[in-house]
């Protein structure tokens, strides 16, 4: 049996169930070991977040907290304005997702449905901006936004999302291109304009791809550090990553590891939730839009 055999070939696999395939046995053991190593840091992230201040300094580290310090999860909201940080990050991420879906969805449709010489050229231009490193443009952008008096507001973190982003345009265009032409012919006969066809035909059929793009956009915004570090200066406007980074740079004599881990767990929460909710669509979306 081949190592690259696909999932659709279960019948063939079960026919030989009695014989244990040595390659599969070895793979299984390798996977057990690597998964253990991958999950161990996460396990300690959660476990340390529930330890008391004294216990977190113990060596060797205890696997499970001796006494579960659930109060850590309350304390962090007092010590760090954690609620404000969380709210700020959520506002920015949600607006970014909305902006990305609308703009990238429109632009991708434009590229997928219309074929022409200018179209080809412009699409290559889109792809080339994917290679454009953010640091290469951050200084002029900073100057531009400071002329507009946008410094220390959320605008520089949100507004660009409403103009489409190359990676998402690319993903969505790949998806839109797979929609059968007949659907749109039918729409045209019914007298639909392009905008209506986009809204009533293309978008509803693209749920997996849109979910993928939404998740990518959310994760990107939620985790971004460089942009908010540049633009936000007053602490009540900080996003979660900026607030958390300040925990190490302010140089505690002994870093409050247990609280740092609480922050990390809470920062991870929305992304894990999102992934759990949309996992099926997400994986489907990646497969369908296939990076080809």
């Amino acid at each position, binding site marked *: 049996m*081949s*190592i*690259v*055999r696909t*999932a*659709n070939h279960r019948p063939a696999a079960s026919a030989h169930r009695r014989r244990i395939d040595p390659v*599969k046995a070895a*793979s299984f053991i*390798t*996977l057990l070991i*690597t998964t253990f190593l*991958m*999950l*161990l*840091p*996460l396990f*300690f992230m959660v476990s340390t977040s529930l330890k008391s201040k004294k216990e977190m300094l113990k*060596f060797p*580290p205890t696997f499970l907290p001796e006494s579960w310090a659930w109060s850590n999860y309350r304390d962090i909201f007092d010590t760090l304005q954690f609620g404000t940080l969380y709210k700020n990050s959520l506002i920015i991420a949600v607006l970014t997702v909305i902006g990305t879906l609308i703009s990238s969805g*429109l*632009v991708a*449709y*434009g*590229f997928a449905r219309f074929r022409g010489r200018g*179209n080809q050229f*412009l699409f290559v231009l*889109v792809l080339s*901006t994917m*290679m*454009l490193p953010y*640091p*290469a*443009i*951050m*200084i*002029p952008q*900073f*100057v*531009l936004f400071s002329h507009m008096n946008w410094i220390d507001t959320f605008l520089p973190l949100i507004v*660009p999302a*409403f103009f489409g982003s190359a990676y998402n345009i690319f993903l969505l265009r790949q998806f839109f291109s797979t929609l059968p032409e007949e659907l749109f012919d039918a729409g045209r006969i019914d007298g639909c304009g392009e*905008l209506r066809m986009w809204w009533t035909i293309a978008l509803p059929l693209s749920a997996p791809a849109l979910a993928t793009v939404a998740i990518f956009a959310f994760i990107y915004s939620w985790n971004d*550090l*460089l942009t908010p570090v*540049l633009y936000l200066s007053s602490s009540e406007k900080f996003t979660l*990553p900026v607030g*958390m*980074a300040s925990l*190490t740079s302010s140089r505690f004599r002994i870093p409050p*590891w247990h609280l740092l*881990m609480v922050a*990390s767990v809470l*920062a*991870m929460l929305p*992304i*894990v939730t999102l*992934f759990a909710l949309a996992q099926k669509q997400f994986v489907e979306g990646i*497969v369908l839009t*296939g*990076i080809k």
Partner: protein
Amino acid sequence: MYMFISPWLVGFLVFALYPILSSLYYSFTDYDIIHPPRFIGLANYTEMFHNELFWKSVTVTLRYTLVSVPIQLLLGLGFALLLHQTIPLRGFFRTAMYFPSMVSGVAMSLLWYWIFNPQIGLFNYMLSWFGIHGPAWLMNPDTALYALIIMSLWTAGSGMILFLAGLQGVPASLIEAANLDGAGRFRIFLNITLPMISPVLLFQLIMGLIDSFQVFTQAFVMTQGGPNYSTWFYVYNLYTSAFKEYRAGYSSALAWVLLIVVMIFTAIIMKLSNRYVHYEGGGRR
């Protein structure tokens, strides 16, 4: 059509083309962001080549890239191949491998900051099981960069997802035919699977390189470029020049060198890909 793509067109002009061109202009000036830029010709570029910290940042970034990107690709592909088989607990393994990729950014840096702590951290504790006395990872100039490389391997699962998607696109009929012809696993992998997923490999190679040239968060949160500049990454250097030393002109020159290097790398890889990468439909592009 133009109605649909107009958001991108406007965005491209305002958020890409204009910044690139003005960045080019700034790179020939002495500019502190507050006072108007003053033209000084090529001085920023000549200074760069005599600036020790510039060369330090180039070396650090290249060392990081050359070690971490290939290992990450191999791990991602390896995991994907293992998990493409029908195997017990496959769903669990896939999720578990991908899980670390959801912790990216600052949270991951904080977590590993603790793991690498020489007194109470997990890493040296686990090494001690094997009788190894671990170094003070992030505080030692000889090991700090390697610590960050080890950390980067933790997220190989994100590459795995893309490889898995690629593997699903390999037609089963091809593999069946090869199997009937008596080709072994390794032959099938080398002659069918690898060529078929080469576009995914190429995509990840380019993206991996570009991301790795732009490492910032780890340096900002965990090491502040130290100790003794051993993690003085290129973009960290660029950020410090612009927003700590207020030398936006010099920093723009750094940005343009980065831009050109990324463009050259991409061009080389694209050129190679025309020769070696298989695209669906079989035609060369």
